[in-house]
């Protein structure tokens, strides 16, 4: 259960404060599928980073499964990232010198999973995203959609409760994007809490709820079906 109460995040650039989030409150239930939309600069990524314990709010309280995360130290935050949260980025962030399996093994290396188990779990995770035949391929030998599916396998191989995706289809054409979203949808159906930042209404429409940010606050809350139909989103 994600509970954000009056979260603010202010960056200081030079002497100028930049308010990325201004007192945002939002709850996400376990197993929910939430899309976050909003114009560029509205604070979507910042919000995702705070939920993912990569960043801390300047003010406000963040509780995750009853634990007040905003009070924890870096070591505890690292443990939460490792055990409870998976990240997927728009630009994949695969490590170029490692093959698909190597990339998927990475989080398990830091969690101290023994080698043999790592191998088999990485293979299983890649199979789960339809990449079973490409485990020895390096990122530059894969298409964008394939890369993103490897990234999803990597984000979920530690079996986190929450998957956070920042524009996962942003760099993909609609076919590849749909493949990626199908994977995410299935994982959500298996119980994974999904928070997806997107500009694409077609992607957002699949979510149970859509949270639209505006200037660092929640502008509107919609259900997926309330979104206006549109042509192809980028």
């Amino acid at each position, binding site marked *: 259960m994600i509970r954000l109460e009056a979260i603010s995040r202010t960056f200081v650039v030079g002497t100028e404060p930049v308010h990325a989030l201004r007192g945002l409150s939002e709850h996400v239930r376990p197993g929910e599928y939430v899309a976050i939309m909003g114009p560029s600069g509205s604070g979507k990524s910042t919000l995702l*980073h705070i939920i*993912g314990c*990569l*960043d801390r709010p300047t003010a406000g309280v963040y509780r995750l499964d009853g634990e007040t995360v905003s009070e924890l130290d*870096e*070591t505890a935050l*690292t*443990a939460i*990232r*490792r*055990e409870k949260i998976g*990240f997927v*980025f728009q*630009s994949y*962030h695969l*490590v*170029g*010198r*490692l093959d698909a399996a*190597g990339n998927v093994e*990475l*989080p398990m*290396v*830091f*969690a101290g999973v023994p*080698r043999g188990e790592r191998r088999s779990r990485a293979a299983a995770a890649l199979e789960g995203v339809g990449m079973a035949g490409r485990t020895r391929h390096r990122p530059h030998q894969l298409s964008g959609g394939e890369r993103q599916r490897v990234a999803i396998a*990597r984000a979920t191989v*530690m079996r986190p409760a929450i998957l956070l995706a920042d524009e996962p289809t942003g760099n993909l054409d609609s076919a590849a994007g749909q493949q990626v979203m199908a994977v995410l949808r299935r994982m959500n159906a298996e119980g994974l809490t999904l928070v997806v930042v997107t500009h694409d209404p077609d992607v957002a429409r699949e979510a149970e709820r859509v949270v639209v940010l505006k200037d660092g606050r929640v502008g509107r809350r919609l259900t997926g079906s309330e979104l206006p139909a549109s042509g192809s989103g980028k």
Partner: protein
Amino acid sequence: MDLLELSLGALRSHRLRSALSMVGIAIGIAAVLLLTSIGEGTRRYILTQFTQFGTNILAVNPGKTDTLGIPGVLGGTTHKLTLEDAEAMRRVAGVDKVVAVAMGQARVEAGQRGRSVPLFGVTPEMPEVWKFRVRQGSFLPAGDLRRGAPVTVLGPTLKRELFGSENALGKFVRAAGFRLRVVGVIEPKGQMLGYDIDDCAYVPVATAMRMFNLDELIEIDVLFHHERLADSVARGITRRLTQRHGGREDFTVTTQTAMLETFGNIMDVITLAVGGIAAISLLVGAIGILTLMWIAVGERTGEIGLLRALGASASQVHRLFLAEAAVLAGLGGVVGLVAGLGLAALLRAAVAGLPVYTPLEYVLAALVVSVCTGLLAGVLPARRAARLHPIEALRAE
């Protein structure tokens, strides 16, 4: 262990760069190894030169100076060292054998051949004290030291020069107007500090004193029962001789151990200085690694952010980069080690007689030093990597 694998992978992805920065460490390690090997080789060479006489021996010289100084320059009126002094030492507790030494240079002739060599006047116990062996015949006969029989024992080089492969025993040689009968030839001893100690002749000490018109000894060597006794024998001899010289300590007692110690200290300083110079090249190598790692952290900022997002702790990131630097330097160390040992072997082969010796400890130390160098060089870059804020790092892409 798995982190190490990641580090290795990172190094492998920049082969040339990694190799180049390894070269720096390799040169440093090779230089340190080579120079200290030459230092250590020299030390051992000189040590064996000294210790071929054994360690349970001391020398008494006329005049008072410090160890390794030149005897006789500081003393005012000094008593001479005499055969009687040598006789008196025989009665000091712990003393086993005594050799009185007088010396002169003379042309030794046999038939048409002649050769100018040092003539040592010694007492019959010389072979036991100086660890010489007689190859042919016998050494100088025992008996009254003051009588001075006209006999001689030849060094093997001199014997060869004078008699070739002929038997010299029983033949006569002439030196300084004396006619001496050859009673023995000693076994070759080789060089001592570059000086052929086989190219000389030995005569009874009284004979030498008469031949060269000497009234004093240049040295008295004392063999005692055990190395442990060095100090007590030295004290006993000093006391006895001071007494005999009218209460004056106008002579110098040098124990082999004291000499070796002084010499060892000098060699330590030299080895250290030479090693220190070589260590500078190691430092340069370390700076190379530091630079490379610093750049690598900058380049891989995005990757560091990703690793943090995947659950890597700051300390794991720290270890990752530290390990990278250590592996880099360690590999450089191994390369340097091989190069250093190879060069040492080459030197030994190329320059005959150049003492080069690499103890196993040096090899191990070189490896440890190179890894430690890497760790040290890696500290700053690793800290920089660990301190990166995950978000800032991710944004750097």
